[in-house]
């Protein structure tokens, strides 16, 4: 596989980087990233991955675009109201970068034949808004040993975690938050400052690119907490819970 002259020009600012260069750009071109949730996090993450030249993106979301989405879901315009999120997102992303392949699944992740789908994927981005989907995605990625980049945001807070399940010692999402219930807060009932989604979603795209180009450079096994009002980042080192009901060695 080679980069065409058009791609050489399109990706020239990546090609200038020691840490990406032509070899890294070709890795991106050969890669398949699955983005679950095309809302506040999924929009910026998908925009950056498409612009960056990740060769294949699969978008999963069952929802249509609503007026209250437009405050933060930056792929969608006012004339897109009531249309499918994944179809609209795919159209926008294809216009941004005709060199990449886009797949859409207009369904919930639970009904997307997800395990079979991610079998051929390099990375999954969890951009969903509820605990049940997060647990479902985590279990599938752990079983298939597909790297998971988990992002979340609410009010003025954001969190980022990267799980490289090809490593035996990797913790999983369930190790960190084993007892979430459905009653917990989401953006619809608690609100969220719009650019926080851009910060966390962009970091998900960045970590995906780092994983694809050079696994060692990524932010694995850490929980990064962002506070918008303090403009502060705090980082915590994660370890697996040996009693975790998904990945636990003693379960």
């Amino acid at each position, binding site marked *: 596989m080679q980069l065409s002259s058009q791609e050489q020009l399109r990706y020239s600012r990546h090609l200038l980087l020691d840490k990406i260069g032509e070899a890294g750009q070709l890795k991106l071109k050969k890669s398949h990233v699955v983005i679950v949730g095309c809302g*506040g*996090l999924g929009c910026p993450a998908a925009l950056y991955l498409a612009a960056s030249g990740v060769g294949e993106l699969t978008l999963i979301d069952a929802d249509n675009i609503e007026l209250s989405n437009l405050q933060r879901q930056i792929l969608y315009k006012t004339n897109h109201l009531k249309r499918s999120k994944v179809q609209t997102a795919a159209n926008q992303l294809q216009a941004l970068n005709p060199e990449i392949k886009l797949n859409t699944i207009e369904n919930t992740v639970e009904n997307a034949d997800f395990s079979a789908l991610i079998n051929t994927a390099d990375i999954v981005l969890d951009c*969903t808004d509820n605990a049940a989907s997060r647990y479902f995605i985590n279990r599938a990625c752990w079983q298939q040993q597909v790297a998971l980049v988990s*992002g979340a945001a*609410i009010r003025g807070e954001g969190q980022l975690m990267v799980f490289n399940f090809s490593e035996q010692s990797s913790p999983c999402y369930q190790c960190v*938050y084993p007892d979430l219930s459905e009653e917990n807060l989401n953006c619809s009932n*608690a609100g*969220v400052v719009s650019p926080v989604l851009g910060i966390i979603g962009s970091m998900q795209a960045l970590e995906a690119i780092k994983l694809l180009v050079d696994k060692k450079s990524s932010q694995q096994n850490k929980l990064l907490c962002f506070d918008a009002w303090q403009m502060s980042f705090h980082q915590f080192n994660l*370890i697996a819970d040996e009693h975790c009901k998904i990945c636990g060695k003693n379960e």
Partner: protein
Amino acid sequence: MKITVNGQAIELTQAQPLLKVVEDFGALAPFALAVNGQFVPKSQHQAFVLNEGDMIDILSPVQGG
């Protein structure tokens, strides 16, 4: 024994399990815990022994997207 919880100084008169300290502080489940920047898995919350100067962070889950 002096420790901090979410940056707030706390004086413990006797050694106490991590879980009791954060519950007395007012933490409501669900939460994750870290001591000195290291995540402590839930299965160790009860048994974890605190030391002088330990810095505890109570981390609330964020699920929105």
